[in-house]
C-alpha cells in the first residue's frame, strides 16, 4: 500500500497501539503478525481464574426466564417486517447498566430476524412453524421486486439435481439458506478500526481498476464496493450504540466491544448455518495483558469481559424451518472459537485468556455455544492439556482438533468454521456443500441406479446385480461408476448454488474482513462412510445373498457365510483400508470437475445430526443395518460395532487420510464417568496421555462426552431437571433436552466406552 498513507495511520494509531511491539502488522493488515509479536504465552495452571462478577450474574439472571420460556415454547419472537441487515434494528440491550459488552441481533434479546435474500419460502415456513404470521409487504417485495438466492439456484438446477435432492442422495445443500462457513477476521476491527480497513479496501479496489473487466474482475469490483459499504454501515451500527469504531480499540474493553460488533454485524447480515467467531482468545489476551500492566484492569475484570462476551454468544438465534432442524438439530449456529495450538516458531498460543474462555463454562455453566474448540498439540503445556481434559470431564462442552496435523496445511492463524473446517483467518473462505449419502450410492450401484426405497430410476441406468450373491469385485466396480456420476452431479449442483449465493446473498461484511485475494475451497462431504465400509467388508469376507422384491429391486441382504465379517472401528485393517480408500477415491472423483471461481476441492467426513435423517431415508444395507436405522455420525463406526474399546475405535478413525479430507473428519466419543480406582488427578493424567496418543497417531477430531446412559435416559424423561445438560454430537454441542426424541434415542444408542 501507499507508504505515506501507512505512516500517517501508524502515528494516528499511536496511542491505541501504545506498548505493542511494532512489526509488519503496523504497515499492512496482518493480525497474525500482531499476535506473534505481542502474545504472552502462559504455561501455568488454572489457579488464577476468577469467579463471575456481580454484573455478569445480574445480566445472566435477566436472561434465565428467556431460556426457560424458549425450552417450553420454542421461538419466542420474530421481527417479521424488517429483513435483517447491519442497520435494520435499533440498538438492543439486556440490562444496560450491567452489560460491559453490548449489542443484540435485533432490538430485543431472543427476537429473531428474517433473511429473505436467502429465500422467501424458507423465511415464511420458519415464521409459520414458530407460530407467527408472515408480513405481506415483505412477501410482495421478495416476489415482485427482488429475487432471492433460492430462486436463482432453482433457475439453474437441472432435473437430475432435483431428482438427487428428492431421493436424498444429496441433501442439506445451502440452496435456500445462508451457506455460512465464512469467518470474517473480526479482530481486524479492534486492531485497525474501520477507517483503516476502508482505506485498504480502496487501495485493493484501485489496483484492479486497470485490469480488463472479465467476469471475475467485474464481480470483484462490485464485491469490493459492497464490502466498503458494509464497513461504513458497521461503523454506523456501532455509533448507534454510542461507540466510534472507526479508530482502533484503545483498551481491552473496547477491543472486546469492537471485535464483538464486527461479529454482530456478520450475524445481522447473514444467517449462515455456521457463523463462527474465529480465534479471538489469544488476540484479546494481548489487550488484557496491557491493561493489567497499566493497572486499569484486574483478573475479575478480565474474566468479566470473557463471561459477558460469551453470554452474548450464547443468545445468538436464527429463524429456521422444521426441515432444517431435522438436519442440524438443537438450534446450533456454531459460534466456534478456537483456543490453544502452537505458532510456527514452536511457541504455544496458550494464554491466560485460553483458560478464561474455558472457565466461562464454570462461571455460566455448561452450554453448547460458543462451540469451544481446543486446537490440540502434543507440544502444548501440560497444565493446559490437563485443564482442558478436566473441563471436558465436568461439562462435555469441548471439542478437540489436531493442531499438529493442521498447522502444516494452514499455518498458525487458522480457525475452525462450523465443526471441523479449518481456514486461515481473513485469507480463506469456503463454499459449503453439505454432503452426499454414500450408502445410498452403494445401493444404487447394486440396483442399477434405482432408488431402493422408491424404486425410481435416479442415477443413470446401469447393469444391476443379477446373481443371488454379491461379488466384491463386481459391486466395487459398479459402485465406482455410481460414485463417478455422483461426484459430477454434486460438483455441478455446488457450482450453481455458490454462483447464485455470491450473486443474491453475498456476505459483504464478512468478506470485507478478508483480503481481496483469498483461497476459496469448495467443501464436499460424505455421510455413511462406516456403513459402506462395513458393507463392502461384508461382501468381501462374508457370503451375502440378496433378497429381491416383486419388481426385481434388491431390498435386503442375508449373510450366509459363517465368519463374522470385519467392522470399522476395531483397528482391523481389512475394513479400515476399505474406509480410507473410499475417502481417497471419492475425493479424486470430485477433483475431476472444475469448480466455480476455481475453488480448491476439499471433503469432509461429517454428518452433524443428519446421520439420523440419512439413515431414515436409506434402505437395508449389506452390512446388516436395517432400513431406516441411523448411520454412525461423521466418521464414527456404526453404533455398537466398535466393540473392542476406545483405543481400537479411535485407531481406526485415525487412519482416515486428512490429505484427502481437508475439510475435516468428525469423530465423537462417549465415555462413562470413571468409577474405578483412579483418582481425579490420575484420571486426567491418563486421559491427557490418551489424547496425545490419538492425535500423534494422526487422529483429526475428538468430540468428547463424559456421561452415562442413565443420566441421558433420565433427562429424556425429566427434561426440566437438566436445562443445561450439554452433549457433543458430530462436530458441535447441543442442549440434550432440545433434541427431538428420535435424536435423543440415537445419542443414547451410541457406543459408550467404559473408560478412557
Amino acid at each position, binding site marked *: 500500500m501507499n507508504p505515506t498513507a501507512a505512516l500517517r495511520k501508524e502515528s494516528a494509531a499511536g496511542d491505541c497501539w501504545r506498548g505493542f511491539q511494532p512489526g509488519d502488522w503496523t504497515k499492512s493488515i496482518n493480525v497474525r503478525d500482531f499476535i506473534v509479536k505481542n502474545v504472552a504465552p502462559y504455561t501455568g495452571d488454572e489457579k488464577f481464574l476468577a469467579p463471575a462478577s456481580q454484573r455478569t450474574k445480574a445480566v445472566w439472571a435477566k436472561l434465565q426466564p428467556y431460556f426457560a420460556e424458549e425450552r417450553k415454547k420454542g421461538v419466542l419472537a420474530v421481527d417479521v417486517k424488517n429483513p435483517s441487515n447491519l442497520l435494520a434494528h435499533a440498538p438492543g440491550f439486556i440490562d444496560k447498566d450491567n452489560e460491559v459488552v453490548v449489542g443484540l441481533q435485533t432490538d430485543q434479546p431472543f427476537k429473531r430476524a428474517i433473511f429473505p435474500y436467502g429465500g422467501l419460502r424458507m423465511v415464511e415456513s420458519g415464521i409459520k412453524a414458530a407460530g407467527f404470521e408472515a408480513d405481506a409487504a415483505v412477501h410482495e417485495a421478495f416476489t415482485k421486486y427482488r429475487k432471492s438466492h433460492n430462486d436463482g439456484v432453482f433457475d439453474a438446477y437441472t432435473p437430475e439435481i432435483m431428482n438427487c435432492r428428492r431421493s436424498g442422495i444429496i441433501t442439506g445443500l445451502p440452496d435456500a439458506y445462508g451457506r455460512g462457513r465464512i469467518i470474517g477476521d473480526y479482530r481486524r476491527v479492534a486492531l485497525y478500526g474501520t477507517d483503516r480497513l476502508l482505506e485498504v479496501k480502496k487501495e485493493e479496489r484501485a489496483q484492479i481498476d486497470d485490469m480488463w473487466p472479465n467476469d471475475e474482475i467485474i464481480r470483484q469490483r462490485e464485491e469490493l464496493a459492497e464490502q466498503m459499504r458494509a464497513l461504513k454501515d458497521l461503523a454506523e451500527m456501532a455509533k448507534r450504540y454510542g461507540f466510534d469504531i472507526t479508530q482502533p480499540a484503545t483498551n481491552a474493553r473496547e477491543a472486546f466491544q469492537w471485535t464483538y460488533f464486527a461479529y454482530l454485524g456478520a450475524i445481522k447480515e447473514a444467517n449462515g448455518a455456521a457463523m463462527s467467531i474465529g480465534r479471538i482468545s489469544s488476540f484479546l489476551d494481548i489487550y488484557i495483558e496491557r491493561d493489567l500492566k497499566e493497572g486499569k484492569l484486574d483478573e475479575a475484570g478480565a474474566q468479566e469481559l470473557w463471561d459477558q462476551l460469551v453470554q452474548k454468544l450464547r443468545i445468538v438465534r436464527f429463524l429456521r424451518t422444521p426441515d432444517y432442524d431435522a438436519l442440524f438439530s438443537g438450534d446450533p449456529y456454531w459460534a466456534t472459537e478456537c483456543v490453544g495450538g502452537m505458532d510456527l516458531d514452536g511457541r504455544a498460543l496458550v494464554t491466560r485468556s485460553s483458560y478464561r474462555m474455558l472457565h466461562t463454562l464454570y462461571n455460566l455453566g455448561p452450554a453448547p455455544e460458543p462451540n469451544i474448540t481446543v486446537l490440540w498439540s502434543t507440544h502444548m503445556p501440560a497444565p493446559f492439556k490437563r485443564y482442558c481434559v478436566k473441563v471436558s470431564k465436568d461439562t462435555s462442552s469441548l471439542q478437540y482438533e489436531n493442531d499438529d496435523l493442521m498447522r502444516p496445511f494452514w499455518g498458525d492463524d487458522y480457525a475452525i468454521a462450523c465443526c471441523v473446517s479449518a481456514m486461515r483467518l481473513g485469507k480463506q473462505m469456503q463454499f459449503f456443500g453439505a454432503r452426499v449419502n454414500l450408502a445410498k450410492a452403494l445401493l444404487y450401484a447394486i440396483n442399477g441406479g434405482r432408488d431402493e426405497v422408491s424404486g425410481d430410476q435416479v442415477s443413470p441406468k446401469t447393469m444391476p446385480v443379477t446373481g443371488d450373491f454379491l461379488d466384491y469385485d463386481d459391486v466395487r466396480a459398479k459402485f465406482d461408476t455410481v460414485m463417478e456420476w455422483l461426484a459430477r452431479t454434486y460438483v455441478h449442483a455446488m457450482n450453481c448454488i455458490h454462483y447464485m449465493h455470491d450473486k443474491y446473498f453475498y456476505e459483504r461484511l464478512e468478506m470485507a474482513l478478508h483480503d481481496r485475494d483469498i483461497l476459496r475451497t469448495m467443501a464436499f462431504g460424505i455421510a455413511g462412510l462406516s456403513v459402506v465400509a462395513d458393507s463392502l467388508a461384508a461382501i468381501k469376507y462374508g457370503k451375502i445373498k440378496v433378497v429381491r422384491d416383486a419388481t426385481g429391486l434388491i431390498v435386503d441382504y442375508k449373510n450366509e457365510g459363517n465368519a463374522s465379517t470385519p467392522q470399522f472401528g476395531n483397528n482391523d485393517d481389512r475394513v479400515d483400508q476399505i474406509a480410507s480408500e473410499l475417502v481417497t477415491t471419492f475425493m479424486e472423483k470430485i477433483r475431476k470437475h472444475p469448480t466455480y471461481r476455481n475453488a480448491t476441492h476439499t471433503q469432509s467426513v461429517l454428518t452433524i445430526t443428519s446421520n439420523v435423517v440419512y439413515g431414515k431415508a436409506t434402505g437395508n444395507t449389506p452390512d446388516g443395518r436395517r432400513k431406516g436405522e441411523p448411520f454412525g455420525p461423521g466418521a464414527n463406526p456404526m453404533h455398537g460395532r466398535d466393540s473392542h474399546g476406545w*483405543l481400537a475405535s479411535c485407531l481406526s478413525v485415525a487412519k482416515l487420510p486428512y490429505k484427502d479430507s481437508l475439510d475435516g473428519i468428525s469423530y465423537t466419543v462417549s465415555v462413562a464417568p470413571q468409577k474405578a480406582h483412579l483418582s481425579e488427578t490420575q484420571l486426567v493424567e491418563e486421559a491427557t496421555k490418551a489424547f*496425545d496418543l490419538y492425535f500423534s497417531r494422526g487422529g483429526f477430531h475428538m468430540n468428547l462426552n463424559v456421561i452415562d446412559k442413565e443420566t441421558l435416559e433420565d433427562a429424556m424423561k425429566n427434561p426440566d431437571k437438566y436445562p443445561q445438560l450439554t452433549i457433543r454430537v458430530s462436530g458441535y454441542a447441543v442442549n440434550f433436552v432440545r433434541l427431538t426424541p428420535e435424536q435423543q434415542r440415537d445419542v443414547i444408542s451410541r457406543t459408550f466406552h467404559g*473408560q478412557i
Partner: protein
Amino acid sequence: MSTVQPLESGSRYDLRAGVSPDAPDEDKFKDDGKGAFGYCHSYESSSRYDGPGLRVVLFVSGCLLRCTYCHNPDTWHLKDGTYVSAEQVLKRLGDFAPSLRSLGGGLTISGGEAMVQMAFTKRILAGAKQMGLHTAIETSGFLGDRVDDDFLSVLDLVLLDIKSSNPDTYRNVTGRDLAPTLRFAERLASIGKPTWVRFTLVPGATDDPANVEGIAKFVAPMKNVEWVEVQPFHQMGEFKWKAIGLDYKHYDTQPPSRELINRVIGQFRDAGCNAR
C-alpha cells in the same frame, strides 16, 4: 481338530458359546508344549482395570472352576473359543503395541483360565515381551502347580484371584479345592513375583468377615503383593447364564453396597494390605 478361524471381531460382552464343537474338553486337554494354536473367546483393547496403564486383554477359553457368580460362563469350555493361531494373536497385538507402549500399558491374558492352554499363553506372553510390552495374566491359581519357572519368567505381573480363605466356601463357590491356589500364592511370594490379589465380593457368598479376614491374614506378609483389589459382584453376566441354560444361583443377589465394600477394604487395610 478344529480349523483355524480369523480372530473374531465381536465384543467381550457378547455371548459366544460352542463355536468350536470339535475342541477337546478342558479337563482332558493335553498341552502340546508348543502352543502354536489355541482357543480364544475375545479381546478388548482399552482396559484400565487389569494391570498398570492401558491393557489389551485377551480372553482365552477353558477353565476348570465353575464359580457360581462367574460373569463369563461362556468361556468355561475350550470349545467356546475360536480356534486361532498364536501368530494371528500376536499380529493383532502388534497393531496396538505402539499405543500400549506410549500409554505405559501392555497385555493381560484372562479368560477362562490363562493356565489351561499353558503353552499357547506362554507363547503369546513371550511374543508380547519381545514387543516391549508389560505382561500379566489373571488366574485362579488352581493350575499353578503345572506352570514352570519359564512360564513365570515371561510374566511381569500376576493378577491372582483368591475367592475365599475357607476350603468349604471355596468349594461351594468354585467347585474345586483351595489348596493349589494358596500354594501358588506362596510360590509367587517366594520368588518375589509382583502380584495383585483380587477378591470378588459376592453378598451372601464371600462377604463373611471371617472369610475376608482369612485372606487378609494370608496375604498381608507377602511383600510381592502390590495391591489387594476388591471387585464388587455385578449382574452383567446374568444374560449369559440364562442363554446357555445354566442354573444361576445369583438372580436375586444384589451388587454389594458401598458400606459393605468399604468394610471389606477396611478389613484388608487393617491387616496391613495395600487394598483398593
